[in-house]
């Protein structure tokens, strides 16, 4: 519905009538003879009113109070105000504009000028409102297509990462659990280490990247990957190369500027590094190991401990946490262990939930 009502707020009948005569027939016209009335009409008909003529000096509430009410109730963006004033002084003009008036007209009214100015302002506002509406629709559309993209992204990453699991006959849920634990630890990291300025979006990207940590295992021959017994030294050396193979695969689609690519690469390559420098493949030491890889590393180890595998039974949650702390399953940075502790309750809760669904 097109708004087509003018509100004229002036305590002097003659002033109202003059404006009314100018716009009669072109607009539906409402009148207020004081500020209180104006506010009441604005509240009731704000969706119909297309412009307000406002006198500053009025009994009961004055023009200033009417404008304040409009500002407080968010009407100034949709209803332009034309101030009616007796004289043109720089001070009063500046004041009117400061209050948010769109224009000022001076008494005596010149019909042609008043008409043109009014039309211009109404058009300007209608134009702005329609642009804003359009923008809102576009934003919504963008948001929806972004959501769709994210969903297909998730799907692709999950499908890709499950390829390895499928082949190695491991339980398909390992990757989902590593993602879950990685997310929990990173969220605690964000709060504990605000100096890193980790954003939720970055966490989301790291969590997705964690799904690909073992993608390089696709290049490991069946004889090694599926071998039931203990690996020979040579075989183990080959197995370790899955970190390198993963990176090689990713490098084919290198996007150096892309944050997600960087996380994927770092996680694939460094999730078997150790804080004491005795990990592989590069023997990185201390904080030279990227945080995302450190977090995935501990999440990976933790999940291995609490889950049942073909070759081993699961440990209890308490034992798993203790073993990680005692350095029985790799050496982690003190900062990471502190964070792991901080996340303990959330981790336990998530693990119990997982084990519950496994039973069912």
């Amino acid at each position, binding site marked *: 519905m097109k708004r087509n009502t003018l509100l004229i707020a002036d305590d*002097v009948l*003659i*002033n109202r009538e*003059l404006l009314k*005569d100018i716009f009669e027939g072109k607009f539906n016209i409402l009148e207020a003879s004081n500020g209180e009335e104006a506010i009441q009409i604005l509240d009731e008909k704000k969706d119909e009113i297309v412009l307000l003529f406002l006198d500053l*000096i009025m009994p009961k509430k004055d023009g200033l109070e009417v404008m304040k009410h409009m500002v407080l109730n968010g009407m100034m963006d949709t209803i332009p105000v034309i101030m009616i004033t007796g004289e043109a002084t720089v001070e009063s003009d500046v004041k009117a504009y400061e209050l948010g008036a769109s224009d000022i007209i001076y008494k*005596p009214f010149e019909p042609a000028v008043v008409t043109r100015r009014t039309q211009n302002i109404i058009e300007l506002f209608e134009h702005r409102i329609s642009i804003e509406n359009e923008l809102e629709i576009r934003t919504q559309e963008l948001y929806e297509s972004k959501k769709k993209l994210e969903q297909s992204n998730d799907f692709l990453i999950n499908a890709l990462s499950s390829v390895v699991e499928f082949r190695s006959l491991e339980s398909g849920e390992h990757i989902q659990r590593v993602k879950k634990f990685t997310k929990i630890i990173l969220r605690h990291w964000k709060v504990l280490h605000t100096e890193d300025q980790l954003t939720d979006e970055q966490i989301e990207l790291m969590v997705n990247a964690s799904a690909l940590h073992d993608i390089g295992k696709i290049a490991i021959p069946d004889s090694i990957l599926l071998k039931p017994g203990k690996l020979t030294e040579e075989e183990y050396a080959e197995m370790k190369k899955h970190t390198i193979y993963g990176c090689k695969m990713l490098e084919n689609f290198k996007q150096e500027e892309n944050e997600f690519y960087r996380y994927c690469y770092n996680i694939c390559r460094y999730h078997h590094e150790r804080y004491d420098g005795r990990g592989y493949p590069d023997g990185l030491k201390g904080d030279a190991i990227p945080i995302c890889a450190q977090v995935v590393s501990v999440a990976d180890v933790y999940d291995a401990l609490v889950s049942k595998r073909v070759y081993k039974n699961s440990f209890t949650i308490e034992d798993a946490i203790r073993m990680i702390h005692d350095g029985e399953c790799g050496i982690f940075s003190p900062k990471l262990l502190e964070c792991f502790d901080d996340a303990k309750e959330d981790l336990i809760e998530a693990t119990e939930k997982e084990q519950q669904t496994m039973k069912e």
Partner: protein
Amino acid sequence: MIKQLYQNIEGDYETAISRMQNDERIQKYLKFFLADESYMQLKNAIEMNDCDSAFRAAHTLKGVCQNMAFSSLSKVVEEITEELRAKNFEKAVEIFPEVVEKYEIVVNEIKKVI
């Protein structure tokens, strides 16, 4: 008839007709003018020594007179408005009889034509 009235009160008929379109309209506004209370408010405020109220009333009356194109009355009302704005109340009281005189001429002339 209306033109004669504007001559008698030293008003600007040309402006009035361009603003209000025709004599019937002007006649309608002349009635509104008689009903307007700002003159009485100004008179009361002057009698009560209330400078602020006098200023507001004078300011309103000025706008009305300008809209009606009552040039002569407009002029003295404008003068008294400025004195009141500057809080020169005594000066305003001095001018006021002139306002009364011009206003009464206008009212008398209007009563003849409506």
